[in-house]
């Protein structure tokens, strides 16, 4: 692989591109799975698959949605491989939270993370795609196989729930 990279600037560029996107892909996988160990496995597998399939990526600008698709697919594969037990959210938060926070984080960010953990998957995923990954509504819809109207509804409900859990002033929020 080393020689391949040295000999081929295109491959080197692809590798650099993947490395620059890796931190956000890992963050996305963490929020998708709520499990850092699993997220690391998913992203590692994603990078491997991307490397093997890099010739299918025609436009570098499309790298991010392409890699996001692979992350989602790999995450779904992990469901196929393993059985899902019932998850105790409070235990999950207690075990995962210490590995997420930066030392300098204030209490309100920790509270917001706990609220995100509790958000239903179908609300948390589009929100992370929009806020963290910078995806447009159309891009979120394409990733999730939903209509843009459905995505907007989920995003609206996600923010309403989060704001309520976090004690934000929701007196000006519209009625459902």
């Amino acid at each position, binding site marked *: 692989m080393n020689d391949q*990279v040295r000999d081929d600037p295109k491959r080197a560029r692809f590798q650099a591109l993947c490395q620059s996107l890796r931190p956000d892909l890992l963050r996305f996988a963490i929020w998708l799975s709520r499990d850092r160990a699993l997220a690391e496995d998913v992203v590692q597998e994603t990078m491997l698959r991307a490397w093997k399939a890099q010739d299918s990526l025609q436009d570098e600008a499309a790298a991010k949605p392409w890699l996001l698709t692979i992350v989602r697919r790999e995450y779904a594969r*992990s469901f196929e491989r393993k059985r899902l037990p019932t998850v105790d959210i409070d235990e999950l938060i207690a075990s995962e939270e210490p590995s*997420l926070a930066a030392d300098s984080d204030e209490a309100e960010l920790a509270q917001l993370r706990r609220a*995100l953990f509790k958000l239903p998957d179908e609300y948390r995923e589009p929100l992370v795609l929009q806020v963290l990954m910078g995806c447009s509504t159309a891009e979120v819809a394409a990733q999730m196989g939903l209509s843009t109207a459905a995505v907007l*509804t989920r995003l609206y409900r996600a*923010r309403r729930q989060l704001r309520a859990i976090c004690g934000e002033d929701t007196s*000006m929020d519209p*009625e459902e």
Partner: protein
Amino acid sequence: MIDCANFRRALLADPGDPDPRLRAHREDCPECARFAQGLARFEQKLERAMRVRAGEASRTVPARAPRRVFGGRPFGGRNRLALAASLALGFVAAAALWLAVPRPTLAEDVVAHMAEEPQAWLRTAVAVPPPALRAVLRDAHVRLSPGAGLVTYANSCLFRGHQVPHFVVQGERGPVTVMILVHESVARPRHFDEQGYRGVILPVPGHGAMAVLTRGAGGDAASVERTAKRLLAAIVWTA
């Protein structure tokens, strides 16, 4: 026309929605403008909360053994060996690739950094509170004069081992991002056009360099350089 309920519903679904009807409503309705301002503050917190540590995951050990989300066989024996082998292989491959890939240029690092903060590119009319902006600029010992324009995002970022101010000014053709790089130096202006970002890194005699960039249809090279020079003139160095 859009009413208050629909304005707020639209904003809760997509705070960065560039729909001109939303902008018009916000300008006409002080209540909704206040709502938008509160939501923008919430969005900044939300983005920071989501930006969990991603670089040094394996070094962080939870206080107690993490509860696995999935069931299945106990984790041990062959699984443990396979994991160790794959980690070792991954490490060796990563090290080999790191050695093989040429060091990125300053412009490449700036562009890579942009991918970490997509929230910065929101088109918005909500200004960063002055104390927050001052705190961010303090790292580089600078102040901004009013000529800089409307600053809608400010963050102190770790870049090449140093905390650097990263802020966004709303220009006529969309958001313009600025990074003040007092620890870097360039001999002459360096234009770049990479991965959809267009910009320039200007030398700042005695104070390192400054990167200014736009994305999408944010402007051509000449207009970016004009904006950069205007911003440079608006910076007051305090040390």
